[in-house]
């Protein structure tokens, strides 16, 4: 168990290779193998969680091997309170995703091989602590995603796939420039922890195009991550990709891939250039507001159920951005309010996890109805409640979780984001509460149109949600409810790491004030 983190990455890669060499007509064998691989990964993630020491905010289970010494590239892995929940979420959703994709019929082998490769890429990004490795995993995700959307997606899949690819690549190229900038200013190393240590001093006074290099790098890297989040105005790829992707891929896209953006901003922008956080926090909060309002309004206007859920992702990630911006409350000039900073940052990280479970649930449920009706037009249903009571019940639960009803985990994290951001960004927080209203409006309105009213005659024989589908949704619903009532375990898990980040941000402010 010494190289437990490597196992998490290499098991799916090996799985992908094994699946690629299985006979092409043995569809079930391929499915079971993939389930076994992701299941094993999930179990290892749980073992990791049990062994993890939550009281220690720094990196644990570190692995370090030389790789390309001439460029100071190493293979460095580590996990802390920020990445551990994400690894768990990845393990869980990829395991569930296999069952969601059980009814994929076309080129099953290719699908699951790419699926496992995607899995490896995602876990790799969360675990790697060397920028080169990080970047490789970041890009490794793109190719499987391109094929998964482009080959198994909806009618506009080709356009959606290449748009997703181009957008993300554009962001990652800018990120690469930022990374190279850090590489040179911080003594030619790709080691993230080393750069974290050196960057604040090394970047001090360095100019790029007559501007502070740190700010330029901050923005370059931020754009790379913002496209993934997605932050307005870089969000236009998302609704398209979501709608065209097969259900399982939408689940993963919303559940995990979007989190990579937030994770990256906290890990890289906050961890390496905390000083510039102050400079950009206002903008970040404002972008959060735009995300909340814009996403909400767009969701309200949708007639396609899946598109509605996609826009709700934009809306929800806005809260996360708002919470992240709240970190600056810790700065001396903002009154050194550590409590608010803690609430905001933990809220943002918690929101990321909650949105992962809730949106996964929503996409699975949309997939269930699409599977039966072959369309997702909100106005095309009506009265499904009488036909599919169980499905209605569980969808109601998911929608309530999505709109942030107290008792569900989404409420806790959204409230934390607001509480954290309130002292510093009062107006923005007040304005963004409109988002909650929109949030409730689009979910409830859609729910009403789909499930209430007179039963649409076309669907009077609609099948109830089946066991396999329930099996994929129920665990997520349980988690959502559990954390809604008792968020303690999650917050304890991340607390030490959050404190460390906040401390750093706070320290930089006092340092700058001197």
């Amino acid at each position: 168990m010494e190289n437990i983190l490597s196992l998490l990455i290499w098991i799916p890669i090996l799985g992908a290779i094994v699946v690629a060499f299985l006979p092409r007509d043995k569809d079930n064998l391929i499915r079971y193998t993939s389930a076994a691989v992701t299941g094993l990964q999930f179990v290892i993630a749980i073992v990791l969680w049990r062994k993890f020491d939550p009281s220690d905010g720094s990196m644990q289970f570190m692995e370090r091997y030389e790789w390309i010494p001439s460029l100071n590239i190493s293979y460095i892995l580590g996990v802390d309170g920020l990445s551990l929940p994400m690894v768990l979420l990845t393990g869980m959703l990829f395991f569930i995703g296999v069952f969601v994709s059980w009814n994929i019929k076309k080129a099953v082998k290719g699908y699951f091989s790419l699926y496992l490769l995607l899995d490896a890429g995602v876990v790799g990004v969360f675990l790697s602590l060397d920028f080169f490795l990080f970047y490789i995993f970041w890009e490794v995700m793109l190719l499987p995603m391109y094929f998964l959307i482009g080959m198994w997606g909806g009618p506009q899949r080709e356009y959606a796939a290449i748009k997703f690819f181009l957008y993300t690549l554009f962001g990652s190229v800018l990120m690469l420039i930022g990374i190279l900038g850090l590489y040179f200013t911080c003594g030619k190393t790709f080691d993230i922890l080393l750069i974290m240590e050196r960057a604040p001093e090394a970047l001090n006074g360095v100019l790029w195009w007559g501007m502070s290099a740190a700010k330029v790098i901050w923005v370059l890297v931020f754009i790379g991550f913002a496209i993934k989040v997605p932050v307005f105005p870089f969000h236009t790829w998302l609704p398209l990709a979501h709608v065209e992707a097969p259900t399982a891929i939408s689940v993963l896209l919303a559940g995990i891939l979007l989190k990579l953006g937030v994770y990256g901003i906290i890990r890289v922008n906050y961890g390496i250039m905390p000083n510039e956080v102050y400079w950009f926090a206002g903008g970040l909060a404002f972008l959060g507001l735009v995300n909340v309002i814009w996403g909400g309004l767009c969701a309200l206007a949708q007639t396609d159920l899946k598109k509605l859920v996609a826009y709700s992702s934009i809306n929800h990630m806005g809260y996360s951005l708002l919470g992240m911006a709240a970190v600056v409350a810790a700065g001396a000039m903002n009154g050194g309010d550590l409590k608010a900073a803690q609430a905001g940052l933990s809220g943002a990280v918690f929101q990321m996890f909650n949105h992962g479970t809730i949106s996964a649930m929503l996409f699975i449920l949309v997939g269930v109805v699409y599977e039966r009706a072959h369309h997702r037009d909100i106005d095309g249903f009506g009265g499904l409640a009488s036909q599919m009571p169980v499905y209605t019940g569980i969808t109601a639960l998911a929608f309530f979780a999505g709109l942030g009803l107290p008792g569900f985990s989404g409420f806790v994290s959204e409230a934390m984001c607001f509480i954290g951001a309130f002292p510093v960004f009062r107006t923005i927080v007040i304005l963004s509460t409109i988002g909650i209203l929109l949030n409730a409006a689009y979910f409830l309105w859609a729910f009403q149109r789909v499930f209430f009213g007179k039963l649409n005659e076309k669907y009077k024989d609609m099948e109830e949600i089946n066991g396999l589908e329930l099996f994929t949704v129920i665990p997520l619903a349980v988690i959502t409810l559990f954390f809604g009532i008792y968020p303690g375990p999650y917050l304890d898990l991340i607390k030490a790491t959050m404190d460390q980040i906040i401390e750093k941000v706070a320290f930089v402010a006092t340092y700058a004030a001197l």
Partner: protein
Amino acid sequence: MTNLQSLEFFIPELILTITILAALITDLFVKKSKTNMIGWVLGVGLVVVGLSVHNLSSVPPTTLFLDMIVIDPFSSFMKIVIILSTLLVIVASWVNDELEKYRKGEYFTIMGIMVMGLFLMTSSVDIIMLYISIEVVSIMSFVLAAYLKLDTRSNEAGLKYVIYGAFSSGVMLFGLSIVYGLAGSTNYFAIQDTLSSLDGSANPALIMALLMIFAGFGYKISSVPFHFWTPDVYEGSPSTITAYLSVAPKAAGFAMIIRFFHQVFSDSIGLTSNAIGSTDLPWPEIIGVLAVVTMTMGNLVAIQQKSIKRMLAYSSIAHAGYMMLALPVLSMEAVESVMIYLFIYVFMNLGAFFIVIFVKNKTGGESFEDFEGLGWKMPIVGAFMTLFMLSLTGLPPTAGFVGKLYIFKTLVGAGSEFLWLVVAGGVNSVISLYYYFHVVKVMFLGGKRSDVITYPPSTMFGLMIFTAVPSLLLGLYWNPLASWVKDSLVFYTQVM
């Protein structure tokens, strides 16, 4: 070193000459259907040449034939790159159906002579030698481009190539003669010496000479605005020759440019030092703009192509642009990045061309339509092509990314005045993704799916493996390459 003493260090070229003669003579005795044998003769000869180049790479850098050419690790590296690409192209020529109608004896022999010219290009330090070597390469390329004599497009390619080639080498010759007029010598080091002590009065002549010489160089590496021949020649030539032209002469061309700028007009400090600096023109910016325009033009026009071969022609212009990005810096690090890029480019670009050849053998065409649904029909070929496209785009974990990483690294490290080049290069990679993945799209996403799965024949498969493995592995572990390049980063310089 005198002529007789030099011979001992000229063994690779001597062996090559013998090989060329052997190829020529063997051709007299074999039937038309057996002319692949000449390829064997040349191939075996080249392997021996490669070994002797390798043997000589450890001797201290020195000049041969009374300062005509040099032998140094840099030229050895380039020679090995050239030999590698030639060997791959020879093997591909065996299985290229386009050539079936013709005797291949002259084809292989001419290729051998071209290698000779390329060798001299990488190592000449005298402008006469430089000119002769360029001409040897050019004339052989003209013949090879027009080798399909029954095909009008091949003839057109050859003719266009001749006209452009003659014109640009004439312009370059004029430039070189001005340099001779200024310096009174044809030797690089003597010229460097004289030019660096010139006062400003000679500037107009110097600028003119520089521009004219760059026209010749730009033609060789197909840099904008001297690129117009490239698409037509690349499209019309036999595919194997297209593949060859996009790799080997480009490598030699870059070697020549680097050596020339390094040792005639400036030195390792970059394009602001010595003679080139005294002209008061912003040369780094000028070359930078040319590089950016080259890759942008290549990429934008590549998007609109319907033939994959022509698309690859424009993409090779774009790749010349990426490599040119490092020229404004011209530090040792910049040269290193160009060398790494070139080495990787050989594999990924040849690989892509080999697949085009293979598909043309099968379907008789090289347009996007001929690739439709190919990924399902020939899964192995589809997977390899995807890998090459990924690598040409420069996505990790493929080798193409490492090449770009080195170029970008050089530019970021050289200071913030070169940052705009990195941004331009990055944006261009994104643009290139669009058309490279258009290939992947038609292979996998479009077209009718048919499950009659075919696999490539063993020679073709071997070629694909041989290009695909480095295209992937060098992206994951390129330590050996990096250290080899580092060791080869030694130029012969005159001891003052």
